[in-house]
């Protein structure tokens, strides 16, 4: 598996959530509403639930917030309920229980007209199999959302042409979807969603049907669009590499539940359970983990020398810097040295034996003094995300803090 994780963006500050979901259920089957209502039924395993009631719970008690400007990835294998979840957000599938709000407005309480407004202006979706109208040209497909809104012909065509150019399809306006390749079709789907200028873009496994090379192009395209426009995105995928590459935060789903929610680094560095651990086992950790997680406190003589890396640099980048200079690398943020990484920490990350990897390792190393910095990696990571600039090097890793009290990485659905 090759991963090219871009240098992570600075952490998003806790802003008002765009979407706020809590206790969301979607149950298919006869009399679905009794399942979330009855704690006994709600606790059943999928197989038991099916045999007891004939119902299937596609989404089970899911809660999360999507913050403004972030790429929120929902990832899971097929049948994990992720596609149902994203359809519940705009009620393309009617949820069974729970609350959804967009900018504080209750989505489930909306009437038909208000819901249509939501779909027309606030959230646009990109589909796995594109969902293009085969009898329309590319231009008219992109303009379709505007047409639905009642925008005049010339204006909507003008705006559509602009977005066609933006996704790199100039000169193909007159073609029909049948004459395009898969990647080009998905660009049309993307342009159609962008053309209505939505507040949130919802992607439902948009690149799963594409060839690997085209898929990478399209991922880069999404990254570029996100960088340029800063639009909030909810991205559904079953591809872990894609999730790690695009996501600011990832919700990992299994059997309708969110089993872990966190940054890519937290998911890889600190899996919540064996399922997640198995999932991320083959991920090249050095390309996901940052030096901010791996560093240890700097000793006095290390403060002044050695190559400098930013805290959000990946371990892979630090390895290169350390290998070139032969000295430990300093983790520098706005002129302050937060810590250092040397061969020991970096190799630990690559080998997956750092404290964050396994619980046993964590307790084992907590007794010894030497790898204390690694032990505090989670705390450091959490600090990085939530507490703003880390304190001076000496305090970057408070000595006595055990993993039990570390607030960050084990972010569970309940905690959000």
């Amino acid at each position, binding site marked *: 598996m090759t991963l090219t994780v871009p240098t992570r963006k600075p952490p998003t500050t806790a802003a008002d959530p765009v979407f706020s979901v809590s206790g969301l259920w979607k149950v298919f089957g006869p009399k679905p509403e009794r399942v979330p209502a009855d704690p006994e039924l709600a606790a059943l395993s999928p197989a038991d639930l099916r045999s007891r009631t004939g119902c299937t719970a596609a989404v089970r008690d899911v809660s999360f917030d999507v913050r403004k400007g972030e790429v929120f990835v929902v990832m899971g294998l097929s049948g994990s309920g992720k596609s149902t979840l994203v359809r519940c957000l705009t009620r393309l599938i009617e949820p069974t229980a729970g609350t959804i709000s967009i900018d504080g407005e209750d989505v489930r309480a909306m009437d038909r007209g208000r819901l249509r*407004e939501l779909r*027309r202006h606030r959230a646009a979706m990109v*589909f796995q199999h594109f*969902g293009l109208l085969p009898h329309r040209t590319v231009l008219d497909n992109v303009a379709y959302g505007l047409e639905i809104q009642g925008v005049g012909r010339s204006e909507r065509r003008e705006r559509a042409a602009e977005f066609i150019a933006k996704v790199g399809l100039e000169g193909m306006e007159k073609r029909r979807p049948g004459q395009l390749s898969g990647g080009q079709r998905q660009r049309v789907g993307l342009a159609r969603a962008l053309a209505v200028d939505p507040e949130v873009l919802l992607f439902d496994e948009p690149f799963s049907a594409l060839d690997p090379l085209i898929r990478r192009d399209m991922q880069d395209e999404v990254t570029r669009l996100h960088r340029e426009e800063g639009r909030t995105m909810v991205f559904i995928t079953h591809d872990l590499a894609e999730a790690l590459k695009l996501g600011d935060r990832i919700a990992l789903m299994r059997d309708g539940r969110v089993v872990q929610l966190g940054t890519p680094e937290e998911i890889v560095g600190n899996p919540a359970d064996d399922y997640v651990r198995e999932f991320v086992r083959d991920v090249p950790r050095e390309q996901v983990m940052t030096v901010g997680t791996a560093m240890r406190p700097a000793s006095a003589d290390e403060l002044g020398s050695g190559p400098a890396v930013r805290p959000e640099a990946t371990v892979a980048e630090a390895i290169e810097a350390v290998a070139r200079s032969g000295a430990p690398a300093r983790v520098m943020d706005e002129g302050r040295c937060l810590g250092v990484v040397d061969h020991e920490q970096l190799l630990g990350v690559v080998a997956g034996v750092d404290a964050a990897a396994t619980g046993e390792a964590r307790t084992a190393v907590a007794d010894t003094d030497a790898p204390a910095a690694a032990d505090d990696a989670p705390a450091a990571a959490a600090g990085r995300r939530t507490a703003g600039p880390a304190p001076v090097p000496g305090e970057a890793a408070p000595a006595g803090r055990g993993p039990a009290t570390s607030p960050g990485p084990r972010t569970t659905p309940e905690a959000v």
Partner: protein
Amino acid sequence: MATLTVPASKAGAPRVLKSRAAGKLLLLALLAAVLAPWAAGHWPGATWPHALTVHLDKPLAAASDWVMDNRDSHPLFLYFFGYVSNAVIWAVRVVYLTLLAAGWAGVTAFAALLAWRVAGVRLAAGTATAFLACGALGMWVPTMQTLALMVVAVLASVAVGALLGLGAGLSDRLDRALRPVLDTMQVLPAFAYLLPVVLVFGIGVPAAVLATVVYAAPPMARLTALGLRRADPEVLEAVESLGATRRQRLLTARIPLARKELLLGLNQTIMMALSMAVIASVIGAGGLGDRVYQALASVDVGAALAAGIPIVLLAVVLDRVTAAAGDGGTRPRTVGWPYALAVTAAVALATRLLGALDWPAGGTLDIAGPVNRAVDWMTAHLYSGVPVVGGTADWAAHFTTWVLDPVRDGLQWLPWWSVLLIVAALAWLIGTWRTALTAVLAMAAIGVLGVWEPTLDTLSQVLAAVAVTLVLGFATGIAAARSDRVDRALRPVLDVFQTMPQFVYLIPVVALFGVGRAPAVAAAVVYALPAVVRITAQGLRQVDQAALESARSLGATGRQQLWQVQLPLARRSLLLAVNQGVVLVLAVVIIGGLVGGGALGYDVAFGLAQGDLATGLVAGAAIVCLGLMLDRVTQPTGRRPGKGA
């Protein structure tokens, strides 16, 4: 137990199947053992017991008389059927006069431009040639009569069918209610539709148009519903995710997405309307069909052919042009509608000014004379006495004596309850207990109607024709599936044969075999054969290539591949071919009543000709029951696609 040595996984499925079939048969046998002696004791004799017959002749005759007496006075006729009837007459006359006003040149020019617009240059040339040929055969006016009737009937069928289809496409409940009705209507012979409309409207153009609409609307309704239901769910979801209203979704997505099915529906409706418009000559449609009907009545093959050729040309042109409109998506624009209309108007004006609106009197080609001379020669030389091979009339006589008579006598010899038992057993083995029940009830209804004997006569003809059709059809279909060359050679032939209306098939068989039951069977075989060949070949070709390849890799011979892989895997298609064969054969065997086929078809024709609607209606009802029974007996579980093509 030898079977135990067979690996369980292999033996499991067939044994279960076998035991289920055996179970069904056992149950039936038990039922028969109890009921049969009782029934035989109560009502002895082979034929349907008299005590169980309900005579409908009197009430039906009374109803018919009542309709006759009240047609001009009763409000139902005055204010409803009267208006319908007048509107139809008015519409047909308007179209007819327009066609005549445009003149032969104008109509030909318009048809060619229309074909050019939707189907390209080649079909435009073909269309022009076809229309000119109709004129050259001296059939311009009958062709226009048929065309006028068709235009009105097709417009009405499309309107009715599209509305019903729209309803069924959008509402599940309506779909569930409508589907069995449409399914059943699709298997009934065209002849069965004639009498009820005649009862209400009397013989004439309105009855002909309405019978055509009833016959031709179902495919439009079916395919409209299918198209609306088959729309890609993700496209619809995408449309909804953009905030479309219901109306917007219907108009901008669902209907355009169903374009292909809608045009296929139009194609099928046109073809069925043509078929019916020709048959409806029996109830006063006039036009080409009437010419064929009159000529056949006096065994004037030449005149029948002169009217039959335009029908075939019309059928082929209409089918090709509408089919091309259906699958053409990216054809370059040729002529616009305004141009086409302007050119037509110009041509029509020019011919009017030249005084050449009617087809030039000297420009007709009389083929009736030469054809009749050829037929006379055939009668003299080919009918009988040809050394070694015999003659066509001899064949017909032999077929009647050695096949048709024994089958009919055998069926009539069987006790009535055993016929019901056989029907039940067959239907249950192939289908479900529901289809078996329907089949038995339909068969029993025939007995109750008091037409047991003629129905068994018709049934014997159907069985003989189906047997011949299946032998020939499977053999040809297998050949076409295994050899690309045969397939290529057959394709155009099948295309033409599948588009021809049923009525036309009677002409050549009368020329070859004279009149009687054998020619009716021959016409039925020729009519049903293309569909059977096509379904068989397609079924065999669609067999999973991986399975075939693995058989080949194990070293199976061609014969082994055919018997062990292709035929078993194509079972569904073969059953469908049987079903279609039976339905199509029945339709033509009934029409064969017009050329001496006798039995039910003759009763209907006789009833119409003599104004004895009661006899005709009873026979018509029996035809419906027979069609229903035959369809259910051969119906594999699951859905079937549309009729014929």
